[in-house]
């Protein structure tokens, strides 16, 4: 048996000071090693910067001005990214469209996380009949192909929701529809991960210990077990943002997503289809931005997966 070091001994104090590294610092240390993930973060920050700071140089009204006399103009001094089929400035549309696309990604991810975590946590914690019902529902949702469902719901609901005003901007009601539809059709994978983690974590002794001091089920689920399963949720959420952006681009490209004049990177591609060769600037810029964003987010997700993995945290000092 090791001889215990007295608490005021320099070695003991040094040990206490050494352990001051918090969990987040540890994660950051590991994340930093992942060069592509770092690059992803930098490029994502630049993209967000582009979409936010860009608004200082242009207005949304300007991005929606149509002028058919200058339609399909190639990039020039006045329109650095060129103009589209109805003469709108592509640069300012990528800026405002970027905001919408990124927002759709983030909010749809939030919807996905809330629904997925709630269903997974409740199913995993309570088990039995509740678990069976929720998991059969999850499987049923899994069985519906997501893209056709997105298309049908987008088509059905697009004009049912009135436009709304937020942050001094007017959003087409279709933005809300597309967020809800993407969020509500992509939570199943996360729900399964969370359920699986809850199934094993609820048997751990610290849960019994928490029950023993009189903690109720709600605080046990959200206060004790959920923090233990944050790592896969964070990774899943990160990748969820990328997926939501892709899905939005997909349905908008097919013309049933976000309705013009509200721009998104996805619906900017919609009109470009007929001009793939004759006016490549129509699709190059929004397409590039989508690819860059999704790629960055996926690299960040990979980096986080490694950095948050508790097994890889061991021996990372």
């Amino acid at each position, binding site marked *: *048996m090791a001889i215990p070091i007295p*608490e005021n001994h320099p070695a003991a104090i040094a040990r*206490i000071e050494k*352990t001051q590294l918090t*969990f987040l610092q540890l994660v950051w240390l590991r994340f930093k090693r992942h060069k592509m993930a770092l690059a992803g973060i930098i490029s994502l920050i630049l993209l967000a910067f582009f979409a936010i700071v860009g608004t200082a140089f242009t207005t949304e009204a300007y991005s929606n001005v149509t002028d058919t006399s200058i339609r399909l103009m190639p990039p020039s001094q006045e329109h650095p990214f060129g103009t589209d089929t109805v003469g709108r400035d592509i640069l300012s549309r990528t800026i405002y469209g970027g905001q919408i696309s990124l927002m759709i990604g983030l909010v749809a991810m939030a919807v996905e996380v809330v629904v997925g975590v709630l269903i997974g946590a409740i199913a995993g914690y309570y088990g039995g009949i509740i678990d069976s019902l929720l998991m059969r529902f999850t499987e049923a949702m899994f069985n519906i192909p997501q893209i056709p469902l997105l298309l049908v719901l987008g088509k059905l609901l697009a004009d049912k929701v009135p436009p709304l005003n937020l942050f001094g901007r007017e959003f087409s009601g279709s933005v809300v529809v597309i967020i809800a539809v993407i969020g509500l059709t992509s939570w199943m994978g996360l729900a399964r991960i969370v359920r699986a983690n809850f199934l094993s974590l609820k048997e*751990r*002794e*610290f849960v*019994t*210990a*928490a*029950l*023993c*001091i*009189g*903690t*109720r089920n709600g*605080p046990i689920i959200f*206060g*004790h077990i959920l*923090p*233990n399963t*944050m790592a896969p949720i964070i990774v899943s959420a990160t990748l969820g943002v990328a997926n939501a952006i892709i899905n939005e681009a997909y349905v908008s490209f097919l013309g049933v997503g976000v309705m013009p004049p509200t721009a998104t990177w996805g619906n900017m591609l919609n009109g470009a289809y007929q001009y793939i060769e004759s006016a490549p600037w129509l699709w190059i810029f929004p397409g590039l931005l989508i690819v860059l964003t999704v790629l960055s987010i996926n690299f960040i997700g990979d980096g986080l997966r490694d950095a948050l993995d508790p097994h890889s945290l061991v021996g990372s000092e």
Partner: protein
Amino acid sequence: MDPLLEVRNLKVQFTTLEGMVHAVNGVSFQLEKGKTLGIVGESGCGKSVTMLSVMRLIKEPPGRITEGEVLFQEQDLLKLAKSSMHEIRGAKIAMIFQDPMTSLNPVLTIGHQISEALVVHWGIGKEEAFKKTLELLEMVGIPQTKERYKDYPHQFSGGMRQRVMIAMGLSCKPEILIADEPTTALDVTIQAQIVELTKKLQSQFGMAVIWITHDLGVAAEIADKMIVMYAGFVVEEADVYEIYENPRHPYTLALLKSLPRVDRKKHDRLANIQGSPPDCIQMPPGCPFRPRCGFGVERCEHENPGLMPVAKGHKMACWVDVTTGRPQ
């Protein structure tokens, strides 16, 4: 004096694929205010299940409390609504566990975990809970309380974690502390420290302690009264001095014989109990200890002896008088 906690004829079963496991078969005991009850017995004899039943923490299904009463301050805990149990757990009866490595939540600070019970039961504010928690940490002998409050369980040693568990258990000044093998995972010197700490805090708070262990040495150190369990039955119950000096059940006798002793000769082998505990799915008829017992008589084959008094405050369940070897 009325006992603080009285368990009467408690029976617990578990449904498994192989059949019904009879984990606890009619356990009864009493615990008086401020006293310590030691429960000893080998692994799987129903010690922990009994205590989890008292706390109403048996998972149902597969478990089921089929019979019995758990009277605490004159109310039957087994009949209480689930929501009222939340007010008992932690506030009136607290429980600490064997392995302090796994009983603390790895992602919450220990301060958070100790103050939780205070917030839950006393509804006090964060600041007050913080102050109380620092007092508790100091009380269980953890230095640098302010720094340690923010630490996570992995930054503590095993003994320190068990101190944290005790602080958690004591935070609301419970009437009863159930300690389920709290020193088993610790090395001997730390064991002694934890036993001393519990005794000190017990006299400070005037609470009753139920100390589950399979270490007869530790039990002798802390208990006032002891019960010995075997295969879900209480086989002997007596005052702690009585049970060590005058064991009356063959199982207790065999347990005491198998203790290592300082005065034993070097080459003597440690005595052990032949065989293994009975299968709790197909309990043999008669006395459960019969197949391993050196005193067996014919009656043991088909009749299970109940607990019967043999001296003042001393009960045991055996057909044979081990002092004479003859049926009593």
